């Protein structure tokens, strides 16, 4: 049915059938099924679709330029696959420090991402370090015009697709040459088949009360004024919404609404020994209206301000190796950061022998079928869930960035790793996409990401019981106290300097990905006393430790955040974000190591802070 629709669409513009017939075996089956299902109904639907496309200049321009790409020829064949993704986006943001506002910003922009594949699905130009590199002069902008004249949009797309094709031809040549000196362990195809998707949602306008949010942000930022030692602080509100478009030469046609809004608060100050302490919170929702009410936001900001003061006054933590109890929220954070990252697998890019490639890699890439968690834990990633026990979730989406419709995935069953989160790049053991291509990536491959990750423990105890277990273990091991973690710095609210210091220390302490810092760490004593300590870092908290989780709590927490695909999901650093949620219980780890930070502590200011009036 889809092919028929597109044949109808193209009739007035070009008499060209869709590209890439060979990848559409699923499409062909659908088409014939639809034909049997009732030609009249199909005709009416096709007309409706044609009308919808013709009424949308971005769609129409994309399809018209897409159709022309079959005529692209260089020293090479025309593309076997072409895709165009466009976002028609609007953002509004406003921020304030200490009760004074920075100017609000309102922006409209239309980023476009087009990709062309040459070669064949089992060997194409993607997945090499050259895949994104174009040696010629670029005439395409990465933004489409804001006006809707068809020819202007088509002109911009024309230049974009021309450059994408030339990049692809150059890349496949260099990839082929690089492989001459390299033996590849296993030959996986570069591109998996996927049925086309047609979804055309009406564009939903979103209104943001700018004046009200400016007042709120100003008022919330005043909370940081109270503590004179707070050297830097900011409260920010941002709302982004876009109509997201995706079309490809396999007849996928997508227009959906994407929205995210957040309030972010961050502060930093120095402790008595000069060490910098910082804390932040980012409250995420799928629309400004869904953000909590102002009193709740104020409470959140107050907790950040109070954490700063308590951390500054807390003693520095000591080296520790032993059991560690994570409260539900902190547990959700590390499941999201560590397990989420390792579930998202992309292949190492092809490069010449001996050439260093900046590439993280996943522990789980080779562990399908192995035990990665205790056998009483299951993990499910569900992009269709909108809420959990009355709390909204941030990770739902309809179609991924490659036009694939995602379904819930049972990633871990009884502790065994069953599947990975994939894009249309096949990975070992998972040959098809499960619709998790959420963020732009490098080397011509998109980054898979979790959506709503549910951590389910089939046996659990109340937190109080877990605490008691912690104390028992501590007593047995002859330790004076155990460690409880209430909050991790993920996504990180650190500055660029903080991040740099962290990745330096990670490479010196054993490599792997930098794991975020714990923020609220408590020494828990047998008499029930809890002492906050500061400045501790985990040594090698990685996927291995999760196998030895001893127990989980009955209580669980929902942790929603924005992931931008960068290390530590550093707040504000990435240009694309997706919403994610993790629902997790508290967990007791058998044995983790913590050590004090050896960062330089700048001297305290000679001049005392100005009076707070």
């Amino acid at each position, binding site marked *: 049915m889809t092919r028929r629709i597109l044949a109808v669409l193209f009739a007035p513009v070009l008499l060209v059938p869709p590209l890439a017939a060979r990848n559409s075996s699923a499409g062909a089956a659908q088409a014939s099924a639809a034909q049997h299902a009732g030609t009249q109904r199909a005709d009416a639907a096709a007309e409706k679709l044609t009308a919808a496309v013709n009424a949308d200049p971005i769609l129409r321009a994309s399809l*018209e*330029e897409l159709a*022309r790409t079959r*005529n*692209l*020829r*260089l020293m090479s064949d025309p593309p076997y696959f072409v895709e165009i993704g466009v976002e028609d986006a609007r953002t509004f*943001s406003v921020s*304030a*420090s*200490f*009760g*004074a*506002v*920075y*100017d*609000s*910003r*309102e*922006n*409209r*922009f239309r980023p476009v991402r087009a990709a062309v594949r040459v070669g064949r699905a089992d060997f194409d130009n993607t997945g090499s370090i050259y895949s994104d590199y174009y*040696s*010629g*002069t670029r*005439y395409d*902008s990465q*933004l*489409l*015009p*804001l*006006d809707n*004249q068809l*020819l*202007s*949009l*088509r*002109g*911009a797309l*024309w*230049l974009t697709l*021309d450059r994408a*094709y*030339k990049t692809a031809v150059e890349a496949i040549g260099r990839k082929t040459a690089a492989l001459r000196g390299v033996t590849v362990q296993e030959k996986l195809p570069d591109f998996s088949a996927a049925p086309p998707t047609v979804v055309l949602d009406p564009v939903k306008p979103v209104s943001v009360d700018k004046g009200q949010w400016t007042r709120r942000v*100003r008022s919330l930022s005043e909370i940081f*004024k109270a503590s004179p030692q*707070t*050297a*830097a602080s900011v409260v920010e509100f941002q709302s982004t919404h876009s109509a997201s478009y995706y079309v490809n030469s396999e007849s996928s046609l997508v227009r959906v609404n994407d929205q995210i809004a957040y309030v972010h608060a961050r502060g930093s100050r120095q402790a008595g020994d000069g060490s910098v302490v910082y804390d932040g919170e980012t409250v995420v929702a799928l629309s400004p209206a869904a953000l909590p009410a102002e009193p709740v936001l104020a409470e959140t900001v107050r907790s950040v301000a109070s954490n700063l003061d308590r951390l500054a006054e807390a003693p520095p933590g000591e080296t520790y190796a032993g059991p560690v109890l994570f409260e539900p929220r902190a547990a959700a954070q590390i499941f999201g950061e560590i397990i989420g990252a390792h579930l998202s697998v992309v292949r190492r890019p092809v490069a010449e022998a001996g050439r260093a490639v900046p590439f993280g890699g996943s522990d789980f890439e080779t562990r399908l079928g192995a035990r990665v968690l205790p056998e009483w834990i299951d993990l499910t990633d569900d992009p269709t869930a909108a809420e959990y026990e009355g709390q909204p979730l941030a990770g739902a989406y309809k179609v991924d960035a490659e036009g694939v419709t995602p379904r819930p995935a049972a990633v871990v069953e009884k502790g065994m790793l069953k599947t990975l989160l994939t894009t249309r790049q096949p990975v070992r053991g998972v040959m098809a996409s499960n619709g998790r291509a959420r963020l732009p990536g490098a080397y011509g491959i998109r980054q898979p990401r979790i959506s709503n990750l549910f951590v389910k423990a089939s046996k659990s105890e109340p937190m109080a019981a877990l605490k008691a277990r912690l104390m028992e273990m501590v007593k047995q091991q002859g330790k004076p106290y155990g460690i409880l973690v209430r909050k991790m710095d993920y996504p990180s609210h650190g500055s660029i300097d903080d991040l740099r210091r962290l990745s330096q220390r990670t490479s010196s302490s054993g490599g792997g990905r930098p794991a975020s810092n714990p923020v609220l760490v408590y020494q828990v004593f047998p008499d029930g006393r809890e002492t906050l300590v500061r400045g501790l870092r985990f040594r090698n908290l990685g996927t291995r430790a999760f196998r030895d989780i001893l127990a989980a709590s009955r209580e669980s927490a929902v942790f929603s955040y924005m992931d931008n695909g960068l290390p530590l999901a550093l707040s504000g650093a990435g240009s694309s974000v997706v919403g994610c949620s993790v629902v997790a219980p508290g967990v007791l780890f058998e044995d983790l190591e913590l050590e004090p930070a050896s960062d330089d502590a*700048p*001297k305290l*200011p*000679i*001049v005392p*802070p*100005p009076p*707070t*009036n």
Partner: protein
Amino acid sequence: MPVLRGILTNVLRTPLVALGVLTVVALTLAPAQSSRQAPNPAGTSQIPALAQTVSSELKRNLDLLAKAEPGAYYISLEITEIDAWDMTASLGALTNSSGMKRRRLDTSVRVGSPAFDNYRVAGGDRPIMSTSTELPIEDDPAALRRIVWREIDRAWRAAAERYVKARSSANLANTEATTADFSSEKPATGSATVPAFKFNPSDWENRIRKHSAAAGIYGVLSSSVTLNVRRETRTFVDSEGAQLTHGRNFARWGVVSRAKAQDGQDLVTSESFEASDPSGLPKDEALAETAKVSGMLVAALLKAPPVDPYVGPAILSGKAAGVFFHEIFGHRVEGHRQKDETEGQTFTNSLGKPVLPPFLSVLFDPTRRTAAGADLNGWYAFDNEGRPAQPVRVVDQGVLKNFLVSREPIKGYPSSNGHGRRQPGFEPVARQSNLIVESSRRVSDAQLRQMLIDEVVRQGKPYGLYFESVTGGFTTTRRRGLQAFTVIPLVVFRIYPNRPPELVRGVDIVGTPLASFEKILATGDKDGVFNGYCGAESGQVPVSAVSPALLVSEIEVQRKPTPTDRPPLLPRPMVSGEMP
């Protein structure tokens, strides 16, 4: 080729300063990130209150930092507030339109003493210590004080660290510094509100759409018309008692058109107009015509032959001459280069000696607001060190008389002459302002052209060159690099004694600076103005250059290196029936 001939006739009939169109050199205005309502015309400035608040916080900090180890002896704060709108349209469609209001705080702390402080330059290593941060746009005193306190602390720490390093490396160094690190000056005070201007964004959006559509000539790959509107207010306070509020407005309309020749060469044409108020920009008809010419020229360049390597006489239009002077001359009279041993120091020992032909003088005058009917970009009331702007006659009748100096003294110049400039986020150094070339050998355009032909014949060359339009060049003044300059020509013609002129493409000017100066034979009698931004150690600063056309007896050109990628493989999507 009717189009090509049409352009040439047009250009050559008008004075050699073609069409009164101004060229921008190396203009890089960062795209705006935000949008807001048009600047409020009421614009009541609370700036003097701002100056008082930060001034008192400065004093509170210095009182204690003066007693620290090492002690601070000077602190300055500069707040740069920019109220801006930027919009771009490409071939009839709007691609961006947004406004923003932003404040930047630059903090500078000096420890030690004026004779030797943390700004001491050692081994070519220029200090970068001032901290730069964004400030809220609201004048909340408590918020401002907190931020100023934090920044002064950071700046003092960086200053202390560098001072200690500079002192220990001075103990090891061979050479004795003969100049101080900071000049002694009488602080200036003054407050002037920067007038608000009327600006209707949606009106201008429609206008630039129309202008940009005019550049849609067949062959043009991309073309954009950009409008930038700025209102800049600067507040400067320091511990010597300086307290200044001043600023300026600036509006720029520019068009850039690009195409790629079949052999891979990238072709660009660019024109712009500047005014201190958007209402001072030319009317729509002139702007649309300028955009159209930009497109037509680039399309003509597509068909033009590539230049052959050539040495011979040439005329540089006034605008092109301005760029020439700015690049090959202007940077070499910047004060700090005279004392840095890693710089070329071309002119350091030339004070009092002829450096240009005797009929030429060069003046840097930041107090000049207009020249040749155009607003000048390099105008300011006070520099970024709080010094009043001063005209400086650098060359008088060919003889080098002065350098441009900031508060960093150089030999023979213990005081600033008001040219300490920087972009927010950088440390000030001596930079150019409005470069003005004066000539006592002015001839009419027709005579100048005749002199070119005479020289062509005398030298036995087949043709001479005419540089109508150029864009940003770069100079390497350091010893280690090549002493060469490249000014990038955009539109160049071969001028024949007995044939019509011919457009050529892919031209690069080369040559050594000293040699080029001696070869200026005469100038035209009308000034051309180039307005732009100059990038160097202290970032981008607005500048201009005013010059008549120049006749040079010898200029050397080479062919620009050409990339080998191709123009687009498919034809541009067009309405069917559209003819090239």
